[in-house]
């Protein structure tokens, strides 16, 4: 093989062909079928492990949409899944497998908290000062996340280092280094647990509509604005065009003068920037300080499932994020009110990804049972 990257490129071409070949309706059907099948397998496992699947289902609905608090919990997770999901979608759409969103999310969130803590003494202690600090924190997250995403991008573009593996390694490294930083040099005074100091009270998102401590509609709005911005960049700008063509038709892109290497770096940077925003929202809206990142949840990983379910379309990430937000909230509810291990939800998420990866499974099943499914 002359071009060492051609394997990856061709593989993605195929995946893209298959996805583009599928109509929007088919894609929706495949996504729905994958989710339903994964949930059914989850229920079978619940039953096999000796729990009552019906109670489990009731718990899932109560925990995700049962009352106002449950809805707030769902939207809280949705906010993060939409942002991290868009970060993944940007990269996957451009044919770059950024599995490092979790690491970029951690680095971004940590940068937010540290920059707010540093700048807090300089800003006035009122709403304006708070808002200014939030903007600075978000900028820090965008820069940090972008740089941490650019690194594997550069390694892939100029040294042919497989980005799947480097980004996974960089996740471990981000979690380890930030974990060490919050335990040692950045540990807040008098903190018993390995946490940074709290960011000041006046720096935070306002509680509107839902009166819960860890969700603000403003956070959700930030996520939706990011979705809109990315959708515009992908569909309406030269950069987006370059990214999508080099993801789907490498040869055509090269022919029309797209610098493939620079596009890879740009893609990874953009993806990391969005992941950084997700980290900032998490740090400000949910935590208010930064703790050991090995225990903050795997939003950056689940985002891969969110993005795939949405066929890597930034707009599709919204409903997919809502579904995962509901599952996540249900998981927390189950953890408190039921003795079914919450890890089951993680397993079901994995199964969703597995089934989404094999659309052919459903096409064959559809043909076999005669439920439509015209030939490819």
């Amino acid at each position, binding site marked *: 093989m002359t071009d060492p990257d051609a394997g990856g490129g*061709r593989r993605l071409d195929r995946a893209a062909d298959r996805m583009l070949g599928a109509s929007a309706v088919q894609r929706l059907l495949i996504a729905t079928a994958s989710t339903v099948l994964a949930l059914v397998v989850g229920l079978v496992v619940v039953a096999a492990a000796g729990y009552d699947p019906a109670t489990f289902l009731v718990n899932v609905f109560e925990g995700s949409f049962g009352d106002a608090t449950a809805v707030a919990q769902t939207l809280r997770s949705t906010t993060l899944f939409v942002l991290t999901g868009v970060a993944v979608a940007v990269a996957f759409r451009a044919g770059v497998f950024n599995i490092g969103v979790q690491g970029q999310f951690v680095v971004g969130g940590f940068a937010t908290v540290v920059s707010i803590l540093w700048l807090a003494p300089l800003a006035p202690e009122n709403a304006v000062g708070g808002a200014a600090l939030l903007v600075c924190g978000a900028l820090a997250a965008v820069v940090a996340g972008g740089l941490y995403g650019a690194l594997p991008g550069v390694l892939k573009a100029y040294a042919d280092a497989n980005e799947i593996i480097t980004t996974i390694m960089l996740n471990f490294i981000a979690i*380890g280094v930030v974990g060490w930083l919050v335990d040692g040099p950045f540990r807040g005074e008098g903190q018993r647990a390995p946490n940074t100091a709290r960011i000041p009270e006046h720096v935070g998102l306002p509680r509107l509509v839902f009166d819960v401590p860890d969700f603000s509609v403003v956070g959700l709005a930030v996520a939706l604005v990011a979705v809109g911005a990315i959708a515009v960049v992908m569909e309406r700008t030269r950069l987006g065009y370059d990214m999508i063509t080099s993801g789907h038709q490498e040869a055509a892109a090269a022919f029309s003068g797209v610098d493939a290497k620079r596009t890879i770096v740009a893609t990874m940077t953009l993806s990391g920037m969005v992941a950084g925003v997700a980290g900032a929202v998490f740090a400000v809206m949910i935590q208010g300080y930064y703790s050991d990142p090995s*225990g903050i949840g795997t939003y950056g990983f689940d985002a891969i499932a969110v993005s795939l379910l949405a066929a890597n379309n930034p707009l599709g990430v919204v409903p997919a994020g809502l579904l995962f937000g509901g599952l996540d909230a249900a998981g927390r509810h189950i953890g408190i009110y039921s003795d079914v291990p919450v890890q089951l939800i993680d397993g079901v998420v994995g199964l969703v990804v597995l089934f989404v990866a094999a659309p052919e499974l459903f096409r064959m099943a559809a043909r076999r049972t005669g439920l439509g499914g015209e030939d490819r």
Partner: protein
Amino acid sequence: MSVADYAARNRVRIGAAVGLLAGAALLAALLDLPVAAIVTVGFVERTLQAATPIALAAVGGLYAEKSGVFNIGLEGFMIFGAANAGAVAWLSGGGSPTQLDLWVGILAAVLLSLAYGAIFAALTIRYEADQIVAGLAVWFVGLGFGPFTAVVLWGNRNSPRLASVADLTVPVLSELPVVGPVLFDTSPLVALAALAVGISWVVLYRTRYGYWLRAAGENPEALDTAGVSVARVRYGAVIFSAAMAGLAGAVLLAHAGSFTGTGDTMVNGRGWIGIVAYLFGNYNPIGAGAAAVLFGGLDMLQIQFQTAGIEVPNRLVNLFPYAAVVVVLTVWGSTRMPAAVGEPYESEE
């Protein structure tokens, strides 16, 4: 390919590995590190034990990729292997597993991995699932259901103390200095892995099946023309890779003596490191085994630093293998993959 051929073709790689070691020695001398306290007999023994699961997973992944299927799910299969080995050993021993129960657990983990491997093979080969996405999914499913198993059985993501595999002491030979404790008074699983590496080299380069396997990855059309079913060869390789990764996870558990399901579980990236080990070894089982030893050594440095009294935070020393992986991929990123990796093959008949 003979060993001499391999050495000749990979002169740069081998030279680099030697250079790396020389550089490390020079650095140690310059910084006045207590080398004698770092490179001890115990360190070598621990390095080989840490390398064992990585080498097993690497050999499995190498077979799958040589046949044309990128099994990126090694990490997930390892998690299942560790969880299943622990669970079966615990159930078989009624809560206090003996050595026999542990071996039953290892065997059961491998058998279950064969079944998972068959499902994964069907999805990637028959149903043409995207190999990368499906492999990632295996990891996610493992990260969910591995700890799930632990919570169901033990009420906690971590198991209680189970049993760790007893050292196999060869009489007389184990009395030898250095070689004795490293080779003849250590976990029998180390020897098993070394054997597996050797055998898989022989099968890959000296048997007809190995020839088919390489053809399935390089030129499936030719193999098909010769009347051999490409799908069947690939099924075999993928199922084997899952079983090896399952064994790798079980070995990890047998060395640790208990299951850890917090964070990224006890496997903690070793499956991914396994992939890098075979890339670094340029798809040669023996090269992959050597790379596994390198990564195993980095993994065990932390204990040596502690005993030698060098003050580096544990949390950072633990990151050495991951950093090494990034460096290795950056310097040797452009490995020559088998030509047909990632391509589902549809026979023309």
